[in-house]
């Protein structure tokens, strides 16, 4: 290590030798920085998982535009809109198809060790093929039978035995929302923060499960464009056509990024994670600054001696920065390793899309270096108090 640094720095690695000299302090400092990195990883991991999870259902649809109630922030909270909107939309040139989408919560009780709350979509079975991915569309025929359901095999907390039965397909009977339902097939989306997974039923079944909902008032209307038309132009035309208050027309991509921003920036859950990341950075800054400035004051006499024999301030700054970089990298590596372990453990238990990504590792290591170097520059200012005249 010493030799390696000597070659890199082209001088004695005095900063490293100093740190190594106080092993207890070095280990404590590295543990502190590792903890700070872990904290940031943890928060960024959850924000990333939140973003990914929010995007999952949007990725399963091939719809181009989505019409929702005004003030809609998420797929789940869409206020009801009049079915007439769909018919109006169909008269706009460039629109090939439109279909209503109902959204509710399906509570599976007594079938699984843990009761599950699934986001259930009610859709016209004949609209599944044009509007949804193949694994969902495959169950369209069987959904035409009353009280049948397609279940998300990637739902969270699914008992292995039940998961196997869901994957293998019918027959499987279970109770949900106090009704006997039959499995019609399965598909894969995955758990989110708001629900344990997803389910599809026909619009008819949906209205039987939720008797207070009306066929004339779906939550959203999905729209597909004709091939080759300009989405923005059709969007503008559709907005003009549906010029009624209470209706929101967006592209599916905008709806998705809008919900992702809402969940991560405005909802308390996202704000808490963001705040946690800032806390981690603060903890790291304080630890590194403390250690580096203690290092400077402990060695002020040595620095004064070196100043006397002709070393300049820039030499001492480079020694302090050498220490800053060692602490940042030394803390980042164990922090990232532990974070990867925690990610996979949490992904296993929560079913959330958590995992170490190169992007995130790069941002954390760059962030750690920048924070440590800033602390180092701050701490290095104390070297100026070393007065070589007081040495003799």
């Amino acid at each position, binding site marked *: 290590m010493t030799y390696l640094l*000597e*070659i890199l720095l*082209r*001088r*004695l690695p*005095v900063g490293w*030798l*100093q740190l*190594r*000299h106080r092993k207890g302090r070095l280990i404590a400092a590295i543990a502190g920085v590792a903890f700070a990195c872990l904290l940031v990883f943890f928060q960024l991991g959850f924000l990333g998982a939140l973003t990914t999870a929010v995007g999952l259902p949007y990725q399963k649809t091939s719809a181009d535009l989505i019409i929702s109630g005004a003030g809609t922030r998420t797929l789940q909270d869409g206020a009801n809109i009049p079915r007439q909107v769909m018919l109006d939309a169909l008269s706009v040139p460039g629109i090939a198809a439109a279909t209503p989408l109902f959204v509710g919560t399906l509570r599976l009780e007594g079938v699984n060790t843990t009761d599950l709350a699934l986001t259930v979509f009610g859709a016209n079975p004949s609209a599944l093929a044009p509007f949804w991915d193949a694994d969902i569309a495959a169950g369209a025929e069987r959904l035409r039978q009353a009280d049948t359901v397609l279940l998300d095999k990637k739902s969270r907390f699914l008992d292995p035995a039940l998961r196997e039965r869901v994957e293998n397909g019918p027959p499987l009977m279970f109770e949900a929302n106090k009704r006997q339902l039959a499995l019609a097939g399965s598909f894969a989306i995955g758990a989110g923060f708001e629900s344990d997974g997803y389910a599809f039923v026909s619009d008819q079944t949906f209205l039987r499960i939720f008797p207070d909902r009306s066929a004339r008032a779906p939550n959203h209307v999905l729209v597909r464009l004709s091939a080759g038309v300009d989405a923005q132009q059709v969007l503008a035309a559709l907005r003009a056509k549906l010029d009624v208050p209470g209706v929101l027309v967006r592209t599916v991509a905008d709806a998705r990024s809008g919900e992702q921003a809402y969940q991560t920036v405005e909802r308390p859950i996202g704000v808490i994670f963001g705040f946690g990341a800032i806390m981690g950075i603060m903890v790291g800054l304080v630890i590194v600054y403390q250690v580096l400035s203690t290092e400077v004051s402990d*060695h002020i*006499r*040595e620095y004064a*001696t*070196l100043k*006397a*024999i*002709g*070393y*300049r301030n820039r*030499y001492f700054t480079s020694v302090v920065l050498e220490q800053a970089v060692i602490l940042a990298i030394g803390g980042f590596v164990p922090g990232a390793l532990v974070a990867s372990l925690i990610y996979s453990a949490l992904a296993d238990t929560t079913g959330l899309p958590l995992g170490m990504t190169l992007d995130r590792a790069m941002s954390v290591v760059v962030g750690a270096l920048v924070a440590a170097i800033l602390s180092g520059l701050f701490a290095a200012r104390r070297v100026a108090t070393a007065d*070589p*005249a007081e*040495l*003799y």
Partner: protein
Amino acid sequence: MHASPVITVEALQHAFGTGEARAQVLFDLDLTLRRGELVVMKGASGSGKTTLLTLLACLRRVQQGRVDVLGTSVETADEAQRVRLRRRMGFIFQAHNLHPALSAIQNVRLGLELHGGELTQPWQEAAAHALDMVGLRDRHGYLPKNLSGGQKQRVAVARALVGNPDLVFADEPTAALDAEAGGRVLDLFEALALERGTTLLVVTHDQRVIDRASRVVTLADGRIVDDRTRTPQS
């Protein structure tokens, strides 16, 4: 026969503090040190020896008077110029001031690295040689805490001399050394003065050093009261 002057001091005054608390410690000093001189400075405690040393070594700002070191006027020099001058000097402090986290040889290397260049191998060799010269051949890898007081002092001597300085300033360098180690350091001092023309200014009351000095300057109450050049008694 007079060698060329390396330090010229004219009408040097120095005071600490201001107003009521002002205390003048050096009065109207004139002094010329020449190439190859081994000068001992002695005098009672508080007579101003250390103050004069730090002024000549460019560690303290000149308040009044002229100080010329190695051809540069110190009183008008900026910090960068003073650093450049200090790089041509060797310093041996009363307390050895070794870096506690660095081995003997690494401490000595610090006396070389400031001269720049990127040749770590020659640095290592020169540092090893300097340690051998002060009799620490078998102590290269020792940390200061594992060295005796005299051994630490000799590491400090090696650090001061390894860069082949033109001037060496030392404050009581032999106090912690036994007869053998002290003699070895004095041999080095003498050899430097004679062979390389190094000028050494040593503050000491050690009779062994005084006996081998080429010149003895005595300070009393901030004034030079005696200055005699002598043939060293070997």
